[in-house]
């Protein structure tokens, strides 16, 4: 059987979901896997939900992760984690950034931002790891590395060679930020590994 790894990255337009998934897909290809990645552009720049699918294995046909078959979900925003929680496979992992981005629609009468989206996600996903990526990046001295730090947390779930990650990250992040981003990546991996070990 052709074992395909299904990764789902979700968040809000402007958070860096597309960058993280581009690095992940490139790394999967460099690691020797057939790879497909799919996301829908268009309205995302206007504060909408962004969702990117990355799949790799011996032979990947569809670029879309089937519902309920995501092995790992990386959520850049709490409510988006809950929105996509049902897509995670039984036994799968959700890595959730603690950030909340409250849309203007929540200021109206008809919709409210969920009170405890991470708690609600735990009812749907067996293993949930929480990371305060913005705070961790502040400690590292640059708030613009949230995307790569979260990708580092996801990398702890995969067996790609560290040299591949380093090469791809260096080629994808803005000039001059390479070392900072690699430090953020390592921090994300460390936090995720510690969180899983603590369970």
């Amino acid at each position, binding site marked *: 059987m052709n074992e395909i790894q299904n990764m789902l990255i979700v968040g809000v337009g402007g958070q860096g979901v597309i960058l993280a998934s581009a690095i992940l897909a490139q790394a999967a*290809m460099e690691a020797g896997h057939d790879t497909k990645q799919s996301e829908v552009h268009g309205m995302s720049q206007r*504060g909408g939900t962004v969702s990117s699918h990355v799949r790799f294995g011996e032979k990947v046909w569809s670029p879309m992760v089937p519902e309920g078959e995501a092995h790992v979900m990386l959520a850049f925003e709490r409510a988006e984690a809950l*929105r996509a929680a049902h897509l995670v496979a039984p036994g799968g992992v959700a890595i959730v950034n603690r950030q909340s981005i409250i849309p203007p629609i929540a200021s109206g009468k008809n919709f409210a931002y969920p009170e405890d989206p991470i708690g609600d996600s735990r009812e749907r996903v067996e293993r949930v790891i929480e990371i305060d990526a913005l705070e961790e990046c502040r400690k590292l001295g640059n708030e613009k590395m949230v995307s790569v730090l979260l990708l580092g947390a996801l990398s702890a779930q995969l067996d790609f060679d560290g040299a591949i990650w380093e090469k791809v990250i260096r080629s994808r992040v803005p000039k001059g930020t390479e070392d900072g981003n690699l430090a953020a990546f390592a921090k994300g991996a460390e936090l995720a590994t510690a969180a899983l070990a603590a369970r």
Partner: protein
Amino acid sequence: MEASQKPEEKLRYLLSGNEAVALGCREAGVHLGAGYPGTPSTEILETIARMVPEMYVQWSPNEKVGLEVAAGAAFSGARALSTQKHVGLNVAADPLMTLAYTGVEGGLVVVTADDPELHSSQNEQDNRHFARFAKLPMLEPSDSQEAKDYIAVGMDISEEFDVPVLFRMTTRISHSKGIVEAGETQKPAIRGFTKNPLKYVMVPGHARPRHAYVEERLVKLRAFAETSDLNRIEWGDKKLGIVSAGAAYVQAREKLPEASFLKLGMSYPLPLEKIRAFAEQVDRLLVIEELDPFFEEQLKAAGIVCEGKNVTGLLGELTPGRLGAGLVREGMLGASTEVAEGAEVLPRPPVLCPGCPHRGVFFELKKQRGNVFGDIGCYTLGALPPLSAMDTCLDMGASIGNAIGASKVSDGKKPIFATIGDGTFLHSGMTGLLDAVYNRANITVVILDNRITAMTGGQEHPSTGHTLMGEEAFDVDLEGLVRALGVEHVENVMNHDLEDVQAALQAAQEHQGVSVILAEAPCALMPYKIKETPYEIIEDACTGCRLCLQTGCPSISLTGTLTAEGRQRAVIDTETCTGCGLCPQTCNDHAIMLVSEEVTV
């Protein structure tokens, strides 16, 4: 196509379908590309402009001109590409239908990027029908490798059969990435234009014999489809045979790994005898296609027994979940484990960005209590609450024509407005405005001029001062253009000054006839991100009245402390606030101040 084989021999890239088309153009030695931006097609020409310097590409003001430009190059013996989204081909349909008669000299491939699921469109029409309508061959890639390879194949078919070739992508093909192995690069020469009035001057006497040619050519194309390896059989278990193409094919291959497949790389004309022979070998034949039963109806008309839409349905993208559910329902797949329902989470509809120059115009327009005929672009978001200031959205340029028609049957009690962006006005609003002047309509046209094609990601157009290839260009003077069309009442407004906008809207209504308001201010994101000193809400002064929220600015949220009366105060996110200064004008309590002002107070 085993992408993992011999990686050392050929360059391999991870490319989106659109990027792969650009690489395909480089390998096929395509000389010219022209089109109009439209999701999901836009990145094709953008990638060529960036990565294929030997090729000339341009944005045209609309798809009709774009296809005419590409056809002119093909008439002149060059290889040419035309790109547009599905509804763009409606605009380009006029040249397309007669190009089928003239044929070409150099290869011509016409990309139509369809949008099943309406991720970013006003409809989800199935443009495979254009192939049958115009009697043109259509290629349909199912992944990035094919998107690259089929460009050279399309150019060869175009030149061999003297025919423009339609090339159908969908959002899932255009925007999904897959591994692409590079191929050989051709260097075709430009053969030049040869005068041939019987072929290129389509007057009735010349066009009648060309119609006969079109029919003969279609017979030859059918024969080609029967033997071409674009349409390949992949034998598996013969209990179930699948006929499929494009994005639907890869979904089907994954869901039904045991089944036999007839994979169509050419969606029109169909290899009906090949399909008939395939059908005879399998117990049950199923057509798996998105949207309309385009293949299914042709198979049934040819007497080939098959199933199709009973499994796949007529609406939207064929996702793994929808296809799986249909296959289980019709007994073609065993029931899999139930997927849980998603949680109810508040929606995140797209909104006008912080600092968007359209916001102030819509904020005041809503107060005019008129009927507002809208158009297509970022400003379509002005229709959504809380702005709710636009009442229609039909097609590119429709706002002005709609307003003229409404004014002619109006009882005069409500003012009639049209709102249209600069790119859309240049695309197909100019002729509407000329109509309004000529036929003495009593309307006010608001041109929301942000100096860029914003919704599709910031493309150049004739009033941006630059071309797709980055060269400086003539920058059209919109006021001069509008006056030349005969509009006498023209007002320029400061978009972020609500009093100024309101005064201009009222003066325009008082003018009998056509008035135009030019609301010019740059997009807050493109080409440069605007970031002035942000505003903040002074907690003690805010009464929780919510007036500022009526601007619909995403930087303002109702997440502050409670007032003594228990009303929640608003908060401005200073990270995203651009300092446009609109919200302070809505606040009766002077509670919104520049961040630096507070320090000096």
